[in-house]
């Protein structure tokens, strides 16, 4: 959290959101700078996914401010937030089960203004990143395995040519080998293309190793933040991480 080389791309200030009467976010501050990987870690139900969805206005922020690239997007309709090329591979993957893999990827491409030729280039890159999808292009999304669905969800988000990629628990329910493949892909995209990533994880160990900076969320509040590897050394993180580990077992 020292001086920042790049300006913040996403700025969240004093954000509050709730489901009915249950407060899910209780005044959250968070920054993602261009070119950064930021990890948001915390236990189940801490409000991590809610924070990601609130950026898209689902649920709407009760209070506070969300800005993207200097523009206030707090009250922008969901689809217009997406058209700023903020892409999300959301909780539960949410691929379209009755569309083919190719169509799922096309749904991401549709969100951009890019030409058909650009789409073809993007598609090749995504398939290069996740070769498993290439073999499955004509298969329906619903027939894929969990890992393949996760790759498809990320691939679909990448087809949006994201300026900010949000990943909600990309490792959930996946075999360690596949998790590593996915994390490697994210690292490559960040180093090679400067892709900005906000990643939500319960798997704090891997997420903090991947990220430049991290935030820890407890009960709808940010309790700690700092550089990824530095956070990993802190005893309270180790405790939270172990606790998280037990829940996942």
């Amino acid at each position: 959290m020292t001086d920042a080389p790049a300006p913040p791309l996403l700025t969240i200030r004093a954000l509050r959101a709730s489901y009915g009467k249950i407060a899910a976010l209780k005044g959250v501050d968070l920054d993602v700078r261009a070119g950064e990987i930021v990890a948001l870690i915390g236990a189940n139900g801490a409000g991590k996914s809610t924070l990601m969805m609130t950026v898209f206005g689902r649920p709407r922020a009760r209070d506070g401010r969300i800005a993207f690239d200097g523009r206030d997007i707090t009250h922008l309709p969901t689809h217009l937030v997406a058209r700023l090329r903020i892409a999300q591979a959301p909780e539960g993957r949410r691929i379209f089960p009755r569309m083919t893999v190719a169509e799922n990827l096309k749904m991401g491409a549709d969100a951009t203004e890019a030409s058909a030729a650009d789409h073809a280039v993007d598609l090749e890159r995504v398939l290069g990143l996740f070769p498993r999808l290439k073999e499955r292009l004509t298969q329906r999304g619903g027939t894929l395995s969990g890992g393949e669905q996760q790759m498809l969800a990320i691939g679909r988000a990448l087809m949006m040519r994201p300026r900010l990629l949000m990943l909600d628990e990309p490792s959930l329910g996946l075999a360690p080998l596949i998790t590593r493949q996915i994390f490697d892909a994210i690292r490559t995209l960040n180093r090679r293309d400067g892709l900005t990533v906000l990643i939500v994880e319960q798997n704090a160990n891997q997420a903090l190793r991947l990220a430049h900076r991290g935030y820890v969320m407890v009960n709808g509040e940010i309790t700690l933040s700092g550089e990824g590897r530095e956070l990993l050394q802190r005893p309270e993180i180790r405790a939270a991480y172990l606790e998280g580990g037990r829940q996942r077992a």
Partner: protein
Amino acid sequence: MDYFAQQLINGIALGSIYGLIAIGYTMVYGIVGMINFAHGDIFMIGGFIALISFLVLVSIGVTAVPVVLLLVLIVAMATTALYGWTVERIAYRPLRHSFRLAPMLSAIGMSFVLSNFSQVSQGARIKSIAPIITGGYTLFETGGFAVRLSNIQIFIVLTTVALLLAFSWLVGRTRLGRDMRACEQDQTMAALLGVDVDRTISMTFVIGAALASVAGLMYLLYYGVVDFFMGFVAGIKAFTAAVLGGIGSLPGAMLGGLAIGLIETFWAAYFSSEYKDVAAFSILIVVLIFLPTGLLGRPEVEKV
């Protein structure tokens, strides 16, 4: 055999009309999960607009049949689509996040509004029109019974096939079709991918209404009459067709429409025409007992 062949032809023509209406029910159900009870009345509006367009065209001296048909088709589709759009905009969209039954009740209300509007503005009497497509072919003749295929039946079937081809292309190959399917499967995710869900839902109503208006035009040409109440029975039949085919399934709607048309025609031909509606609904019940999701419906459980 001749009699059978004749009924088959008649049934397919009638079934095409039901099928085109049924698509509107099934599309709307698929995307917003409601039964649009006003859809039958949209079909009726389509019939009236076709009638009015015919009269206007004839009065200004346009009489070449293909030109007239094409113009009426375009006017009816465009105007009825506007009705469909308006109904969704004022009666359903404000209730989208209300409790589940609210839009359904609103739809029943809209059904009354549309039929009463027609009754008041066009009068309660049955309106008739002189036959526009006449003639036909005698396919074969045995024992004094001629099996006839009329030009109007050919027109109905060819138009239906053309519309279905265009419609499948739209749903399967275009961006709008992809957006519609995305909204049908997961509206939140569609929005996260930049799809304007409200606009996509509007377009669904517009397309459904346009198809129903063609059915209205066909009905007018086939039977030569329209009245303000015709949307009710035809709507119920087409809804039955959609359920029979598997609500939410587009090929199912067309298949269900054909099935209902054929059942009704054959029952009337071989048993009694008074009970033809009872036959159609009885078969629906029997099918639903053995195939609760309809002929082409998909099972509820889906691996996601």
